């Protein structure tokens, strides 16, 4: 119930706990003071001005908040910032090389792989991670055998990208864009 905790009683509500950390985001050291309850997604968006990662569900069910942590795709909405002081974080803002778009970014534009654009940063970071996983030979649920390296056909891309929801239904463009870069 709302208010099922007695907040007037003794020892009811503890004070917020803060921590001073030094994050590394897109190769840049970012000292921050965070509430231990803060997620990486909220730190990026509300404290560091990096609003590329999106909040679509805040519960790990949509993928819009996907970033890269030590090169692996991860959900920033389920990552407590206080746990992320010793990792390299890359967000969608860190994908391009100056003015030169990352090949996946260019392919997304070229293939009209988005409409509203809200899931796009997560799709892009997820695609970067998925391509790296495939390059390392990671199988997926649709990989026919577990011994041979996976061939990144359309079904493989669809399955590997299934953690990123797109309500606009831009999947044909997303799959085409990822496939184009995978080749």
């Amino acid at each position, binding site marked *: 119930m709302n208010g099922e905790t007695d907040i007037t009683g003794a020892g009811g*509500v503890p004070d917020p706990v803060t921590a001073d950390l030094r994050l590394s985001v897109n190769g840049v050291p970012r000292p921050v003071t965070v509430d231990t309850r803060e997620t990486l997604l909220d730190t990026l968006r509300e404290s560091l001005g990096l609003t590329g990662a999106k909040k679509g569900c805040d*519960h*790990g069910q949509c993928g819009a908040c996907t970033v890269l942590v030590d090169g692996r795709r991860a*959900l920033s909405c*389920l990552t407590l910032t206080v746990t992320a002081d010793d990792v390299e974080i890359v967000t969608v803002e860190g994908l391009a090389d100056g003015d030169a778009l990352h090949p996946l970014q260019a392919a997304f534009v070229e293939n009209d792989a988005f409409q509203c654009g809200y899931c796009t940063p997560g799709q892009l970071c997820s695609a970067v991670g*998925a391509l790296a*996983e495939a390059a390392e030979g*990671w*199988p997926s649920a649709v990989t026919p055998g577990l011994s041979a390296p996976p061939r990144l056909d359309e079904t493989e891309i669809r399955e590997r990208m*299934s953690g990123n929801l797109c309500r606009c239904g831009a999947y044909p463009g997303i799959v085409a864009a990822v496939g184009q870069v995978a080749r």
Partner: protein
Amino acid sequence: MRPFTYERPADVRSAVAAAGRPDAVYLGGGTNLVDLMRLGVATPRTLVDVTRISSRAIEETGGGLLIGAGVRNGDLAADPLVRRAQPLLARAVLEGASGQIRNMATVAGNLLQRTRCPYFQDVTKPCNKRLPGSGCPARTGDHRNLAILGHSEHCVATHPSDMAVALAALDALVHVEGPDGARTVPMPGLHRLPGDEPDRDTVLAPGELITAVEVPHLPFAARSRYRKVRDRASFAFAVVSVAAALDVAGGVVRDCRIALGGVAHVPWRAEAAEAALRGAAATPEEFARAADAELARSSPLPGNAFKAPLLRNVLVRTLADLAEPAEPAGFAESEPVETP
């Protein structure tokens, strides 16, 4: 979220000590715990982050594989040893969640994840698992995705893990470190049925920390299958799932391992089906008999009665696939079949 202190102990011993405090919990990948904290379902005062001290190694032991508790699900399914020696485990892990979540979730955290019963996850509603004694609205409410086996009047929740279903089939051993020292808990056996204490998901005592999972070598599990049935084509929890391995010689089932997901408060080892199968002919009729033996123990609710025929079909099909050589590629067009 209630404010909490965050600790990163230097070793397992100090982690166990830290977790002995009231309202302290271990933090692994956070994919379920952080979710539940944000929902207000979990309100710890201390998080003991064990990701830096949990082993991320996968090693061959004499009798099987020793998998560190901190191994991420993504690494687990990609590991060459696992893929070669325990394909059922790799397959089950790959069927779970999404790529991102698999990269975060740990082996121990996956085992200890909590039910996705909608009432459990909504703190504005009663739930015996969350608030013992408050009631179980799922029995008369929506229980389409909930248990048909082993449930009690107090709880009809299901365990959501895919990985745990494979581990239950494979007789995995869960290594635990606790205030009173180390022990080993066999699977199935880590998770418990709800009975009149549905708030207790497992047999672990407060403060006990999973340090590793050992999966014994089972040569015939090279021929195994994890079949997951779900409403959405990917990134969805199982409606039901079957983990099965079959040892057939001369048309007779010498041995088998079967565990079921999405049907019970635990990853359900299908012991009745296994007993019916051992020594039986490897035929669809016997597979159906085995499925019926297991289903004889079930007590579906009105809203999930469909799970019984579903489970029967999937179990029979999975066993039949394992018993027979793989079907040729391609398909027969216009082959007459009966309406399902």
